[in-house]
């Protein structure tokens, strides 16, 4: 069974569109994250939720809005897509917020904005 899953795995869209990426974890974890990996493979945190509460919002444009309907899901909605949003977006989860809690990553969603 997949621990952290993301849909879709590939997303190609036009500038100005609105799109969503879904993430689900079946590990029973309390904490979920969104990371962005740019074209140079650099990974950076975007958001973190703990028990559906926003913990980290790392200076991300407000066109990006995470939503956590329950502890097992953390979706990422992006409005007015721009060329610079093209990247791979990773969802991750961990048992909790403690440093000892390992983060497990989903397979990533490759977003291409044309």
């Amino acid at each position, binding site marked *: 069974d997949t621990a952290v899953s993301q849909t879709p795995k590939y997303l190609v869209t036009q500038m100005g569109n609105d799109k969503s990426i879904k993430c689900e974890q079946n590990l029973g974890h309390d*904490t979920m*994250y969104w*990371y962005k990996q740019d074209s*140079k*493979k*650099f*990974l*950076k*945190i975007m958001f*973190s939720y*703990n028990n559906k509460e926003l*913990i*980290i919002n*790392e200076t991300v444009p407000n066109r990006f809005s995470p939503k956590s309907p329950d502890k097992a899901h953390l979706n990422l909605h992006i409005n007015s897509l721009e060329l610079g949003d093209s990247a*791979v977006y*990773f969802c*991750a989860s961990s048992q909790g*917020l*403690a*440093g*000892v809690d*390992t*983060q*497990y*990553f989903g*397979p*990533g969603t*490759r977003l291409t904005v044309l």
Partner: protein
Amino acid sequence: AQTVTQSQPEMSVQEAETVTLSCTYDTSESDYYLFWYKQPPSRQMILVIRQEAYKQQNATENRFSVNFQKAAKSFSLKISDSQLGDAAMYFCAYRSAYSDYKLSFGAGTTVTVRA
């Protein structure tokens, strides 16, 4: 903010040989966690090994081991008996034990394994 530096963009190793990837970090904290993640061409991020800063003993996972030098703020990964399946990008990451719950990643090192 913590900075993680991987100074080797690429490394090449002969199959069955050993390769060591370097990682240094900058922090003022005394307690933290360090990780190595592997990203193969499938792009899945896979945890390779984890080290707690308060533990002096270096972590080991099968063919993967680390050399953790706390005073030098160095955390290198050694891959022994390299296999073709080890070919991937390897990321070093730092996580505070107190706050700032994110993982801070280095820029990555691409490992190529020659048959």
